């Protein structure tokens, strides 16, 4: 493999790399053994702590919680896309009374911690909204604002000649947006929307603070009952990793399928 930093290795470099690889693997094995030893001496590997994950009643509770989490994520992502589209178009508008408030909303909700939003929504409107919608609305405000910026970037990424040609044909601005820019932008943005749904799926876990009965809250309840927070956290992490990793592979696959793209979607989301 060659990259910015090095050429294709010759025989000597190859030997050196093999040696370094071997050392790395030895270090990893030693670290893993130490970790297992520590878990063993603290009794974390005893069957009693892992029992809930083979007990049908608890497995079912966890799977139901996973479904709840998925439901929150799906509703939140769908509404976020709508929210994002509305505010992106608003911000791209020529009318100042439309573009200014849109920009303000988008910038505000991107800068405020999501957990704080969810807590505030729940504390103020929780009685009327219920826990599900408090969580979903918080997620929509944040992810929708991020998506609004993604959409705006997507529309701006359509080559200028496209809109100029459309104007030259006599289309109005709204027509240019609907007929020319948005259809092309959606193609560019689809992988980014999927990447953002990874973020949304992870953020459903913030329901924990309300607490809403999604995966992490149920996991916490199980861990309090069995005194097995480490096994529970490891299982939760694995469930999230499997779901999110599949989603991001899907994004990469879509990106490849749709051909060239200027910016890998996987690098659009850098936080949260």
């Amino acid at each position, binding site marked *: 493999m060659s990259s910015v930093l090095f050429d294709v290795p010759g025989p000597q470099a190859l030997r050196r790399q093999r040696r370094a690889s071997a050392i790395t693997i030895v270090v990893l094995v030693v670290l893993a053994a130490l970790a297992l030893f520590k878990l063993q001496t603290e009794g974390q590997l005893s069957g009693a702590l892992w029992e809930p994950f083979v007990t049908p009643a608890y497995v079912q509770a966890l799977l139901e919680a996973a479904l709840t989490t998925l439901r929150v994520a799906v509703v939140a992502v769908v509404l976020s896309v709508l929210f994002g589209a509305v505010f992106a178009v608003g911000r791209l508008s020529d009318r100042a009374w439309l573009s200014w408030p849109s920009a303000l909303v988008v910038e505000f909700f991107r800068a405020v911690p999501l*957990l704080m939003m969810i807590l505030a929504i729940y504390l103020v409107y929780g009685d009327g909204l219920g826990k599900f919608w408090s969580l979903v609305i918080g997620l929509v405000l944040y992810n929708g604002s991020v998506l609004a910026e993604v959409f705006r970037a997507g529309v701006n990424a359509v080559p200028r000649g496209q809109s100029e040609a459309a104007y030259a044909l006599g289309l109005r601005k709204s027509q240019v947006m609907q007929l020319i820019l948005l259809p092309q932008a959606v193609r560019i943005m689809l992988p980014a929307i999927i990447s953002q749904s990874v973020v949304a799926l992870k953020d459903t876990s913030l329901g924990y603070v309300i607490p809403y009965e999604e995966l992490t809250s149920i996991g916490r309840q199980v861990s309090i009952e069995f005194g097995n927070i480490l096994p529970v956290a490891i299982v939760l992490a694995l469930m999230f990793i499997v779901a999110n990793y599949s989603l991001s592979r899907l994004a990469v696959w879509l990106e490849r399928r749709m051909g060239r793209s200027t910016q890998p979607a996987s690098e659009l989301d850098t936080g949260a």
Partner: protein
Amino acid sequence: MDTLWDSRQVVLAAFGQTLGLLVVAGLGALVLGTILGAFRVSAVPALRAVGTAYVTVFRNTPLLVVFLLIYYGLPELEVRPPQFWRATIALVLYTAAFICEAVRSGVNAVDSGQAEAARSIGMGFGQSLRLVVLPQAFRAVVPPLANVLIALAKNTSLVAGFGIADATFRMRGLINNNPGDVYVIFVGIALGYVLIVAVIAFIARGLERQLAVAR
């Protein structure tokens, strides 16, 4: 309005806590993330695999689950750092994955002709890295790094769910005690976060401009 003014000391102390977490966890994550980033662009396949595995695990796990693992999990192993440090470790482990990706994309953003040219005039690996690649990579890394630090500033709010009195924790307390002033309290605390985010963005923009070199 009075509620916020009357509790200004509590609120300021809470933002002190938030900033403390941001700075300590940010420095920790920069160190760990840079090391992992170096792994990910290294010539050694096993090191690259370590970097990739770390990023895959921590980018796909919710920060809250990392908190459960570290905050409640470490004491189970008879390792008992104080609250603040357990929260910091969780934030560092999570954020390092994103810093690693930022560093990697920065190094990859350097045109490969640059390093090839450096090698062909006889520079060794260390020289080409130090004199040619890293100065350019650093410039490309500033914007994504700023985004990661902004995300970290917001992510520190998770400690509110674990009994650490940061700004979000105090917001909940103030709203519970003064239900009549929710909007003032919410907007006040939110503006505090907006200010932190704006300062990070401002510094990043300054750095970017300073590092910008006409090519």
